[in-house]
């Protein structure tokens, strides 16, 4: 056990820290590529710079534009980005879900076509999984794809699709066989969002931001070469995506929490709440939860590097992050007292905390609700009987 950087890791950290200082434009600090945050063009530009400097897809193979670095480098990267409050790469879904899925299940042609562009920010991805009738029970999905020779014709509707309004590509799960049990007739497609017949309609979230969308598919042609894995075996491919959504992404989420805790401490001091014993107690608790989460991620990482399989501890990341983040943002509003109601330009910090607090409520719903994640831990990690 050793929590120090190895000499190589320390050198990497130092170089990265210097690079961020030198290349992060003034005014971009603390602004993620979200509505109200960094604009799309700026976010793409930042992502391109990260990629050119070799910091996007650190753990991805060299041949697909990555660096082939060990996972610890990715952990260091996220720590340093959080420390500098540098904006995240625009490809949250591409880097965290689409890319890793293509790497495992994709054809050589698909890897060459998409991985590099995902890292450079040229291809932004969205995820077309949920439907009006199929959320937690994803396998019940009804958007269908019909065989039309060298391509499929897709018809149906997806919903809650984050970033679809700016996305170039979509990872889409569709029904290709309705005559078999629900998990057995699903196919996983890569869809060009500029295809004819795709209609994206923004949906406004409780924050007021249009961050997710409905996507309507009307006779959309998708080439068969865009099937990932085998036809009707898309469920297994989708599982890979979800594993990464809740695991790999967990690291990025923890880095966000690290920023949030630092900001919380700054707020508490700024508002003179640092003498209030109850606030002190709650701040300490948030910090402890952050450390525990970060260390648990490291532990899962050590298991992954030793055995090639992520440790079961990883299943905790997204679940605990979301709940901890909700408590943290609520504490910030509590610290603001009556001023907590003022948001936007009239709010303290321009309404930052009001936005964070409202947005945090989505955290326990997106990427698997907390209830579903507790089911998964109970059933798949702990071996309890199935609840259904």
């Amino acid at each position, binding site marked *: *056990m*050793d*929590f*120090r*950087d*190895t000499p190589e*890791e320390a050198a990497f950290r130092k170089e990265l820290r210097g690079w961020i200082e030198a290349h992060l434009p003034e005014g971009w600090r603390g602004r993620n590529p979200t509505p109200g945050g960094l604009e799309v063009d700026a976010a793409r530009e930042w992502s391109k710079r990260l990629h050119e400097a070799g910091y996007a897809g650190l753990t991805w193979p060299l041949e697909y534009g990555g660096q082939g670095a060990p996972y*610890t480098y990715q*952990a260091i990267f996220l720590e340093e980005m959080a420390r500098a409050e540098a904006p995240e790469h625009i490809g949250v879904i591409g880097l965290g879900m689409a890319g890793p899925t293509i790497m495992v299940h994709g054809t050589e042609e698909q890897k060459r076509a998409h991985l590099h562009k995902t890292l450079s920010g040229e291809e932004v991805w969205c995820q077309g999984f949920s439907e009006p009738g199929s959320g937690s029970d994803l396998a019940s999905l009804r958007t269908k794809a019909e065989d039309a020779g060298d391509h499929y014709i897709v018809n149906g509707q997806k919903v809650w699709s984050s970033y679809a309004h700016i996305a170039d590509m979509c990872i889409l799960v569709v029904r290709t066989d309705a005559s078999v049990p629900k998990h057995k007739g699903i196919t996983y497609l890569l869809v060009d969002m500029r295809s004819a017949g795709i209609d994206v309609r923004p949906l406004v979230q409780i924050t007021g931001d249009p961050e997710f969308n409905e996507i309507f598919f009307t006779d959309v042609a998708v080439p068969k070469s865009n099937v990932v894995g085998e036809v009707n075996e898309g469920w297994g491919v989708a599982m890979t995506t979800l594993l990464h959504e809740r695991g790999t992404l967990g690291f990025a989420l923890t880095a966000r929490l690290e920023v949030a805790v630092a900001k919380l*401490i700054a707020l*508490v*001091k700024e508002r003179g709440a*640092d003498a209030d*014993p109850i606030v*002190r*107690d709650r*701040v*300490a*608790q948030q*910090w*402890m*939860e952050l*450390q*525990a*989460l970060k*260390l*648990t991620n*490291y*532990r899962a*990482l*050590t298991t992954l590097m*030793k055995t090639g399989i992520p440790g079961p*501890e990883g299943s*905790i990341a997204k*679940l*605990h992050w979301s709940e901890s983040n909700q408590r943290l943002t609520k504490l910030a509003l509590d610290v603001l007292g009556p001023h907590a109601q003022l948001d936007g330009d009239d709010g303290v910090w321009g309404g930052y905390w009001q936005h964070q607090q409202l947005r945090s409520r989505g955290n326990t719903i997106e990427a698997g609700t907390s*209830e579903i994640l*507790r*089911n998964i*831990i*109970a*059933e798949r*990690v*702990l*071996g*309890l*009987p*199935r*609840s259904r």
Partner: protein
Amino acid sequence: MDFAFTDEQEMLRHQARSFLATEFPAERIAELSFSEAGWDESSWRTMAELGWTGLSIPEEHGGAGMSFLDESVLFEELGYALYPGPYLSTVALTLPAFADAPDLLASVAAGTATATVAIAEPGGPSSLEDAGGVRTEALRAGRGWSVTGTKELVCDLATAGHVVMVARSEEGVGMWSVAPPVSSRRVTSTMDRSRRLGRLVLEEEPARLLVGPEHLEPVLRQMRSRGLAALALEAVGIAQKAFELARDYSKERKQFDKAIGAYQAISHQVSNIYIDMELARSLAYWAAWCVAEEDPRAPTAAAAAKALASEAAVAACERSIQIHGGVGFTWEHVLHRYYKRAQWISSFEGGVSAQRAVVASSLLDA
């Protein structure tokens, strides 16, 4: 960055797990909790032979010259087995006070001595943090010293060979070792009967100076960090046992024709035990590493780990008792013993809010 224990440490864990499972099964723990002594004295020799008591004692003093990280494997396993014996008090708490006393180090390594630290006083300080407020007096007596005063909440007092007194002399607060007569010790009724606290009344008891006032601070800090980190690890062991009992019972027990684990009100509680335990485990291992490496973050890490792990252990036991229904509420069932130990850990050196206050101070008062 590497979060794994070494192969040697894993072997030690394995050895501890099987030794403790054979020597101290649940029935034996229950039996010992009713005995006058409260523990099996012969086990101390055996543990010394296994090399456990001298793990971190330098080789020139008869130890194995290893680190707190190696000991931490044992703290966790001893907690898991609910071992009743003065390992925590002797090894985690007292050793820093013995650093300049080679004879005492050697006797701990050899298994011929056990020891504890006496801090709290009735109406006075109750933790190492406010050791400055002690009223117990150390006076020069000829070429040596004598100590007069009353101590309470002394861990494993009944069995300790040496009691390290935090006391005050004309020069300031320091530490003296005494071997108090039986008549001066009273075992106080303790909720956790497997780790009893005691009250000590000394009147001009001959004493040996161990730590002079000028050296007190670093020794106190080390004692506290070692003690809190050790308790955090023990709490992880406690949580692990409560978790396993809950998990297994929820698979076995059937009601309404189904294993109760199929009901989410049960399965989600089992998940919660697991989540809290794994988070606490990570923090406890990190704290252990910080202590072993004398990292400047050790005091904060240890306080944070003790808070999170004791809370996780208490909650694990409470949830597990609930999951077991009526049988979990019986004296017969082992769970209440773990529950009481978890609460013992929680209270020692101050509860969760006291530990969080330490953490808060490092975050907000810098």
